[in-house]
């Protein structure tokens, strides 16, 4: 009952003008930061921290929380319309979102991503409200062996991402994993594959790589298909927004992906991208039409978006309940809280329930505001797809270049973005999917550091003696084997 009365008090706090303005401004800025390649949710939140110095802790957290929620949705807009994911997790949204646009159904992609993001965000927040303390305690008890097993489970999704090109998908994932080992080894401090170049000490940055692999490679592919005539990304008579029943059909996908996304979001270091990949894989495996995934199936968009938005609620669990930031954005948020002399952790719920519950209420309201602004804005964003290709393609390149430069203010990052773009174009042309490369780059560090820590703590047998680890590894084996066997069966038929 305490929880509910605190929540009511939290909603009561939002009745003022300042909280309402903070939510609306936060959502708008979050959508813009998410939609702009090169600006991550963590950057969006970090940039606004200095503006919160004069605000109260509640308003600051409401503003920053709203940005965090909306930025995850914002990434899907450019992923669906121009195949340029604004955030790393939106890469998964583009798998089916952009094919929908190419089929002349950008409204379906945008509408599905908006509804799935909103519902996912709300479910993630509800789980955060009711289960934050026990879930956080569970998450921090996990052994590195279990984190390693989780990463391997994530990597096993490559088998279904690749479809009949599974061998190519695995090579792409291995290349991503190998690229991830470039730089200074996080455990021993040894330089690995830096070729004596100090710019490679930190390895290749993820954001320029994914901008290159998705946006630039798509532009180069379009150029290759280009005929010097009029052309737009998609031709459609009207926007074709999904009807209520279209959304209703996705209810189980959205619900399942939201729960999965929240749970994965709780694991420190896992985050929205892994949540989106895993949920997409689960959605594909449980779909009646798995063969349509990657070709414009709204289920794929819904799974990815519900998962990445719900992971926000998950990521806030260890932050608020234990004071442990599990992602870059929550690390920025913890800094913002400390500026205001608020120390996250178990005592926060006792000492400052006003801050905690006003944030919970604000996150729920922010999702509703995002839905309203998203519905209104989608009519505008959809127009991107009717811009002539002759104007759009150079513009995407210009956005990509500044987006990759803005990450570390580095020309080297821009050059690597172009390199990844050329590689992505050639690989895609010959049937090698780009997504496993990104998956390898995202999961590589999680897999390696936890593998080495686990061995250090318990030897090689630790992976099969811990129940959670063995279950996740068995799930990974199943996740790897089932799509391959299905492929074999389909091809023999």
């Amino acid at each position, binding site marked *: 009952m305490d929880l509910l009365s605190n929540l009511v008090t939290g909603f009561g706090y939002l009745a003022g003008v300042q909280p309402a303005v903070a939510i609306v401004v936060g959502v708008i800025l979050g959508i813009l930061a998410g939609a702009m390649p090169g600006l991550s949710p963590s950057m969006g939140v970090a940039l606004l921290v200095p503006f919160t110095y004069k605000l109260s802790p509640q308003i600051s957290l409401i503003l920053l929380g709203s940005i965090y929620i909306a930025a995850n949705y914002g990434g899907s807009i450019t992923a669906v319309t121009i195949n340029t994911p604004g955030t790393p997790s939106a890469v998964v949204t583009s798998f089916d979102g952009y094919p929908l646009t190419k089929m002349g159904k950008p409204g379906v992609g945008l509408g599905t991503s908006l509804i799935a993001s909103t519902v996912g965000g709300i479910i993630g927040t509800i789980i955060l409200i009711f289960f934050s303390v026990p879930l956080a305690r569970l998450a921090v008890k996990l052994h590195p062996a279990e984190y390693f097993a989780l990463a391997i489970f994530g990597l096993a999704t490559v088998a279904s991402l690749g479809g009949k090109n599974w061998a190519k998908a*695995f*090579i792409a994932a291995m290349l991503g994993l*190998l690229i991830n080992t470039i730089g200074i080894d996080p455990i021993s401090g040894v330089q690995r594959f830096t070729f004596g170049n100090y710019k490679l000490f930190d390895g290749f940055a993820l954001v320029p790589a994914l901008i290159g692999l998705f946006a630039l490679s798509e532009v180069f592919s379009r150029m290759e298909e*280009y005929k010097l005539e009029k052309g737009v990304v998609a031709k459609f008579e009207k926007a074709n927004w999904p009807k209520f029943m279209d959304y209703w059909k996705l209810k189980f996908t959205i619900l399942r992906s939201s729960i999965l996304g929240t749970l994965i979001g709780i694991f420190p270091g896992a985050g929205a991208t892994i949540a989106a990949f895993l949920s997409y894989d689960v959605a594909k495996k449980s779909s009646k039409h798995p063969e349509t995934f990657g070709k414009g199936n709204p289920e794929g968009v819904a799974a990815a978006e519900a998962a990445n938005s719900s992971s926000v609620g998950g990521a806030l669990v260890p932050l608020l309940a234990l004071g442990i930031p599990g992602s870059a954005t929550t690390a920025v948020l913890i800094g913002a809280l400390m500026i205001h002399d608020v120390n996250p952790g178990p005592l926060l719920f006792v000492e400052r329930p006003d801050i905690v519950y006003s944030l919970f209420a604000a996150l729920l309201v922010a999702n509703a505001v995002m839905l309203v602004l998203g519905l209104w804005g989608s009519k505008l964003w959809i127009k991107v797809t009717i811009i002539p290709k*002759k*104007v759009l393609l150079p513009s995407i390149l210009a956005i990509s*270049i500044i987006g990759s430069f803005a990450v570390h203010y580095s020309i080297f990052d821009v050059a690597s973005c172009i390199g990844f773009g050329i590689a992505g174009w050639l690989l895609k042309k010959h049937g090698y999917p780009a997504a496993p490369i990104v998956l390898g780059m995202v999961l590589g560090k999680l897999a*390696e550091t936890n593998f080495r820590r686990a061995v250090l703590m318990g030897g090689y047998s630790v992976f099969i003696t811990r129940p959670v680890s063995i279950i996740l590894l068995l799930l990974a084996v199943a996740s790897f084997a089932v799509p391959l066997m299905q492929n074999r069966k389909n091809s023999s038929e």
Partner: protein
Amino acid sequence: MEVVKFLEKGPGLALFLGFMVAVLGVVIFLIRRSSKKEYTARIVFPVIFMEIAFVFLIILMGFKKGSANTVGPAVVPLLWIIGIFAFSIILIVKVLLGHEEKDPEWGNIRVAVTYIIFTVLYLIIMQYLGYYIATVLFLIGGMYYLTYRNWKVMISLTAGWLVFSYLAFYKLLYVPLPQGKLISWIFG
């Protein structure tokens, strides 16, 4: 180990990569003269991956070993390298057994390559003339190359993008967009 140290940077690395390119050239030559010439790219790609893995493998030999019950810095990359070799061999075998389709046709490769050159030039020019001048040249030149001739749109879009870049990235986000060495030298 001295050999590995020589090969991992500078002239040694250039020599090593040159050798790899030469091997690739020989492989392409042999495929083009064989009955599998319509599968050249299907074979060349896995060969390139194996060459990359081989370069990494040679460099990896120079890493220090882990002590008992610790995993050294070479172990995990070695796993990925083995994976690349294994899957590359699977792909080549699939081609040889006729389980792969023929190479895809190239489209309008001239436009794509020209645009890649434009993008690289944009990056180079940006370092000498600065972000703003380079962007004007790139956007207007790029649209013009694609036969777009609506000058009002070209100029307003370029100007709009420059204003947005300046306000959003330079002013709000403090992104130090390149000023250009030449511009800095002239104007100080």
